[in-house]
């Protein structure tokens, strides 16, 4: 089903990469340095929601605890920094690995449930992570943790230099996006969508559905942990509010707005959400109003997300958050 659209617009991702790569020079030239950091934050957000889209859209695992894994990643990094590690690579790797272990343990429990029960149990675990973070006096408790140790990329590259970190984040963003997009067309990806569509039949075909879903859950969550470590590196600060369930819900809304189960859906959602959240408050103090209005409009007129409006893929290919909620109701 590779429609003409995919071929005609094949240059769009390339153009996007060129624009993103050139952005720091552009912003420096026009004295908009601040926005380099903003775009970097946006790219980290896109990595995180892409991993969430894999779980929600392709895996049909409607999890409301993604921020919990961001939190595990961030605090794992804090623990590793406190243990004396300063290499950003090692910190990110360690944070990802620890999040993966956490996700495996949580997955063993939550994947025994389905539908709304799955949603509630992922939420419960994320809240547990939140309360653990709040009570961790060593790492600042509910005040959060401020990174004071200087970190390093090695070879004399300094992550405190925005442009250096920007380049690394851009590379990670491209890799992560390519990884997930490739994965959904792989054997593994096809089994995951098969389980989403018909778990009983998958068992009858001989697939160990629990194990496969657990693997997918670990992959998706570990990447959120990596995103958390990246946020930590950029901001030099983590607060337990990052883990709060409202943040998980926000991530879910981003994916749903963009188009759950569409390759570009989460990216579109994150771009739109991030830009609005950045610029609306500059225009009006009451920026929540237009934001809420937008969400309602999208639910009414594009229930499968914005990407569904332009995509030729049928809506059935993706679950759709609102369809899911309707099924549960």
């Amino acid at each position: 089903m590779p429609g003409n659209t995919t071929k005609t617009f094949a240059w769009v991702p390339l153009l996007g990469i060129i624009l993103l790569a050139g952005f720091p020079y552009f912003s420096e030239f026009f004295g908009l340095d601040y926005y380099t950091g903003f775009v970097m934050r946006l790219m980290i957000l896109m990595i995180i929601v892409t991993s969430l889209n894999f779980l929600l859209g392709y895996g049909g695992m409607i999890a409301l605890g993604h921020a919990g894994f961001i939190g595990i990643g961030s605090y794992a990094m804090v623990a590793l920094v406190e243990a004396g590690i300063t290499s950003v690579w090692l910190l990110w790797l360690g944070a990802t690995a620890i999040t993966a272990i956490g996700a495996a343990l949580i997955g063993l429990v939550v994947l025994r449930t389905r539908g709304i029960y799955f949603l509630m149990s992922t939420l419960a675990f994320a809240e547990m992570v939140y309360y653990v973070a709040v009570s961790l006096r060593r790492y600042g408790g509910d005040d959060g943790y401020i990174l004071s140790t200087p970190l390093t990329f090695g070879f004399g590259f300094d992550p405190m230099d925005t442009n250096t970190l920007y380049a690394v984040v851009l590379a990670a963003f491209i890799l992560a996006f390519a990884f997930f997009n490739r994965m959904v067309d792989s054997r593994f990806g096809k089994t995951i969508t098969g389980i989403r569509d018909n778990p009983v039949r998958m068992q009858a075909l001989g697939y160990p559905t629990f194990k496969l879903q657990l693997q997918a859950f670990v992959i998706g969550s570990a990447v959120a942990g990596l995103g958390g470590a990246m946020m930590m590196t950029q901001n030099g600060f983590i607060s337990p509010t990052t883990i709060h369930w409202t943040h998980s819900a926000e991530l879910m809304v981003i994916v749903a707005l963009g188009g759950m189960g569409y390759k570009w859906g989460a990216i579109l959602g994150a771009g739109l959400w991030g830009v609005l959240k950045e610029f609306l408050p500059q225009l009006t103090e009451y920026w929540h109003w237009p934001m809420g209005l937008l969400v309602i409009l999208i639910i009414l007129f594009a229930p499968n997300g914005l990407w569904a409006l332009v995509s030729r893929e049928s809506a059935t290919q993706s679950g759709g958050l609102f369809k899911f909620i309707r099924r549960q109701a």
Partner: protein
Amino acid sequence: MSLFSAKGLIKNFHSLRATDNVSIDVNPNEVHALIGPNGAGKSTLVNLISGLLPVDAGTITLDGRDITGLKAHERVHAGLSRCFQVTNLFKDISVMDNLRLAVQAHDGNNFKVFGIRNNERLLNDKARELGAKVGLEGDAVLDSIAGSLPHGAQRQLDIALALAANPKVLLLDEPMAGMGQDESARVVEMIKGLRQHMAILLIEHDMEAVFQLADRISVLVYGKVITTGTVDQIRNDPKVQEVYLGSETSHG
């Protein structure tokens, strides 16, 4: 020595005993049919045998191996495959993608996260071969969305999915349900071909088909097997006529 045997299967749903001490066996290359009126517990029995429901008591052996403790997907790998009474496909993807998914389950490593699956030539060839086994051929059919196929073709695909495992024993749960006479006749021919390669436990309402295909027939009533015998024995058994044939002989 039978290839497949279930002994003393019991399943209770609260106070209802849906499966009451059922024993049934299938010999190599045999078609053993299980008949019974609605509500006799046929579907429960199929789910117990295929592992979708746990048994309360009893043992299931396949080719000399005790598979009672195996999960549904492990039983498939042990050589016990099933079809579904209500056609159970991946309705939103193409026929070819259904077949690929079935082949993939028994072909190599599925934790492959790179490599575009649909470009795997060997897998595609095997998927086409599998489709051909049940008469689903040609790009027009293979590329159509599974849910858009006519009912008969969907049943054929359902059977193909079960065949991907190369089962020793195939569990067919009412394969003729909801079919017209022509379609039914086609499936009968198909099952005749399949029995050359495997043993079949056939759960079926269509008596015409059962009498044509079965070597032995067991009759299930209220969760119990009341009798097992050859076609002629069952036809002439007054007990069977009373509970089953008398009321439900003519079934489309």
